C-alpha cells in the first residue's frame, strides 16, 4: 500500500430540494454536508454510519452518479466534476460500483454473458470473441464457471448474484471500486465467502475499495481506515484498529458499544443513545449530535465543532477536544 492518494474529496456537499407545493419554499435536505477525505491507492477505506447519514450519497457522488452541489472530487489528481459527460463515461472504466441488493442490480432480462460483456462493449474493449473469453475468465475468478454464461439472474442465489455484481465491476480492471453495503443482503455463511472474494480480488488486481457499510464487524475486518458519518458529516476518521480501540467522538463510542456481544458471557459497557437520528431536513443547531450526546456542553448547542486533527491522522469533529 502506498501513500499516494488515488481519490481526494474536498468540501463535498450534496443537497436535495424537497418541494412543498406551489407557495411554500422548498425544504433543503443536506444529505452530505461539507466532507473531506482522501483514499490512498490500494487501501480499503470504510464509511460507516446509520441509515440516513449520507454514506450512500457520498459513494454515489464520488462516481458522479449524483451531481454534487459543491466541492471537488479529485481522481488521480483531476477534478471529475469538470469533465464532460463523454469523458466521465470513459473515466468510469477506472471507477466502478458494487451495489447492495444483488436482486435489484442485475437486469433480469439479460443473460450473465450479456451482463458481463456489456461494460466491455460500452467501453469498446476487445473483439466480440475476446469479450466472452474475458467474461469466462472473470466468472472463474469469482467462483462461478463458464456453464453459467447463458443463465439468467433469477437462476442464481443471492450470494452468486453478488459474485456476478462484483465480476461486472472487476471485468473492466478498474482502479477504484465503491462497494455500497455489498454483503448486507446476504446470509452469514455466504457473507464470509463474498468478503473473502473481495479480499482476494484486492490482492490480485491491486484494487482500492471504498467500503460503505453499517456493519461494524465487517468494517473492522476489511478496512484500513474508517470515516464515521452522522447526519451528512464525518464526525471521526481514523485507522481502523485505532478507531475501534480508542474511539474519541461520543457518537463513535456509542455506535461501537451498541454492537451486539460476541459471546453470552461477554460484559459490555453499553452507551444507549436516547431518541432517534434527527431528520436531515431539519438538523439541530451547533453540533448535530448534541441532543443525543451524553457529554453535551453549552457550546455544542451553539457552535459547529471544528475538525481537530492529531498527528497520526486521527481526526474528530467534537468540542470536547478543542483544547
Amino acid at each position, binding site marked *: 500500500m502506498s501513500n499516494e492518494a488515488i481519490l481526494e474529496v474536498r468540501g463535498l456537499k450534496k443537497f436535495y430540494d424537497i418541494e412543498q407545493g406551489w407557495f411554500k419554499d422548498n425544504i433543503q435536505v443536506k444529505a452530505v454536508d461539507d466532507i473531506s477525505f482522501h483514499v490512498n491507492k490500494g487501501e480499503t477505506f470504510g464509511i460507516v454510519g*446509520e441509515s440516513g447519514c449520507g454514506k450512500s450519497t457520498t459513494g454515489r457522488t464520488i462516481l458522479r452518479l449524483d451531481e454534487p452541489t459543491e466541492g471537488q472530487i479529485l481522481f488521480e489528481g483531476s477534478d471529475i466534476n469538470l469533465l464532460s459527460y463523454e469523458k466521465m463515461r470513459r473515466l468510469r472504466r477506472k471507477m466502478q460500483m458494487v451495489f447492495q441488493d444483488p436482486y435489484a442490480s442485475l437486469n433480469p432480462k439479460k443473460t450473465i454473458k450479456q451482463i458481463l460483456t456489456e461494460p466491455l462493449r460500452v467501453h469498446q474493449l476487445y473483439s466480440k470473441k475476446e469479450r466472452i473469453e474475458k467474461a469466462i475468465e472473470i466468472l472463474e475468478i469469482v467462483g462461478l464457471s463458464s456453464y453459467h454464461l447463458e443463465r439468467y439472474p433469477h437462476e442464481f442465489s443471492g450470494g452468486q448474484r453478488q459474485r456476478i455484481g462484483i465480476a461486472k465491476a472487476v471485468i473492466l480492471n478498474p482502479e477504484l471500486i465503491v462497494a455500497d453495503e455489498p454483503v448486507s443482503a446476504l*446470509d452469514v455463511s455466504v457473507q464470509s465467502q463474498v468478503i473473502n472474494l473481495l479480499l482476494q480480488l484486492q490482492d490480485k488486481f491491486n484494487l482500492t475499495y471504498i467500503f460503505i457499510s453499517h456493519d461494524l464487524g465487517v468494517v473492522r475486518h476489511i478496512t484500513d481506515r474508517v470515516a464515521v458519518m452522522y447526519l451528512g458529516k464525518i464526525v471521526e476518521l481514523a485507522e481502523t484498529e485505532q478507531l475501534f480501540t480508542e474511539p474519541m467522538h461520543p457518537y463513535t463510542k456509542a455506535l461501537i458499544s451498541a454492537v451486539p*456481544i460476541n459471546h453470552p458471557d461477554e460484559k459490555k459497557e453499553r452507551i444507549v443513545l436516547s431518541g432517534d437520528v434527527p431528520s436531515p431536513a431539519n438538523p439541530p443547531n451547533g453540533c448535530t449530535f448534541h441532543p443525543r450526546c451524553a457529554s453535551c456542553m453549552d457550546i455544542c448547542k451553539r457552535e459547529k465543532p471544528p475538525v481537530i486533527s492529531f498527528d497520526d491522522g486521527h481526526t474528530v469533529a467534537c468540542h470536547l477536544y478543542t483544547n
Partner: protein
Amino acid sequence: MNKEGGALNNKILEVKDLQVRFNTSMGTVQPVRGVDFQVHEGETLGIVGESGCGKSVTSLAVMGLLPSPAGYIAEGEILLEGKRISHLKEREMRKLRGNDIAMIFQEPMTSLNPVFTIGEQLSEPLRQHTELSKKEIRRKIIEMLKLVGIPRAEEIIDEYPHQLSGGMRQRVMISLAMLCKPKLLIADEPTTALDVTIQAQILDLMKKIKSENQMAMLLITHDLGVIAETCDRVIVMYAGEIVENTDVRTLFNEPKHPYSQGLLASLPKLNERKQNLYSIKGNVPRPDEIPKGCAFSTRCPHVSDKCRNERPPLLKLNHQSCRCWLYEGETQEVMSHVK
C-alpha cells in the same frame, strides 16, 4: 412456583414433530421437516438459521398464519400450555392470537396499517379480547406506549404510522403485542431492519418487558450477536430441521454440529483482520435439492459415506442435542427417529 428459578417448570409451548408443506405450481415443497422443541415460562428460546431454513415458517405455523390453502401442517402438533392448537378452527385461533400468543414482525414499516392512527390499531386487540370501555382502552394504550419508551404518548396515539421513525414503529409493534399480556411472544427478526443504536434500545426493551412479565419468548434471528444478547436456549436450524438444540453458553463455547461450528467461525470478529474469513463452502440448498442423507452433507467438512446416504437422528449429548453422525458413539439416547 417461585419467580426466578422455577421458571423452567412450566411448559408454555410445545412443538412436536412439526412438518409443514406448501403446495406450489412446481409441486410440493417441505420447508419444515420434523421440528421438536419446547419453550418454558420466562425463557427466551432463539431460533437461528439462514434464509430458507424454515425458521419463519415454524413461527407462522405456531401462530396459525400459514398461507392457506397452499401451506398446511402435514404432520405433528403444536401445544400451548398442553392444549392442542395446531388444528383449531380459525374462529378459535382468533381468540388466542393477540391474547395468548402475540407476534412482532421484522418490518415495522409494513406491519402497521398506514390509514389508521396508532390508537385505532392498538385498541383492536383490547376490543377483541377484553370488555373494557373506550376510555379505559385509551388509558391502557397510553400506559403501554409509555412503558415501551415512547415520548409524548398522549399525542402519538392520534398520529399515523408514517409520522414515526423505524425504531418508534417497532416500539409501537411491541406495545401492540404486549397489550393483552400474552403468555408467548414470537419475535421474527425484530431488529433486523433497524440501525445498531436503535437495535440496542429495542433489545434492552424486550429483555426488560420479558423479565417483568415472566412470559415465554421465541426469538427468530439470523444474527448470532442478538442470540448472545437475549436468549437462554438456542435452536440452530438448517434446511427445515433442527441440527442443534442447546443452551446459549454451550452453543458459543462448544458447538457440536459442523454447521453451528461453521456459523460461529465465520463471524468477522473471531478472525484475524484482513485475512480470509472462515467460510462454509457452497450455498444453502433449495427445498427441492436437499440431499438424501444429512441435509448438510454437501457442505460439511467432515462428510462420510454414511452422511450421504442416511439421515442422522437428533442425538442426545451431555449438554445438547445434535443431528450429526459424528457423535453417534457418544450418545445413549436418540431424541427423535428418522421417519
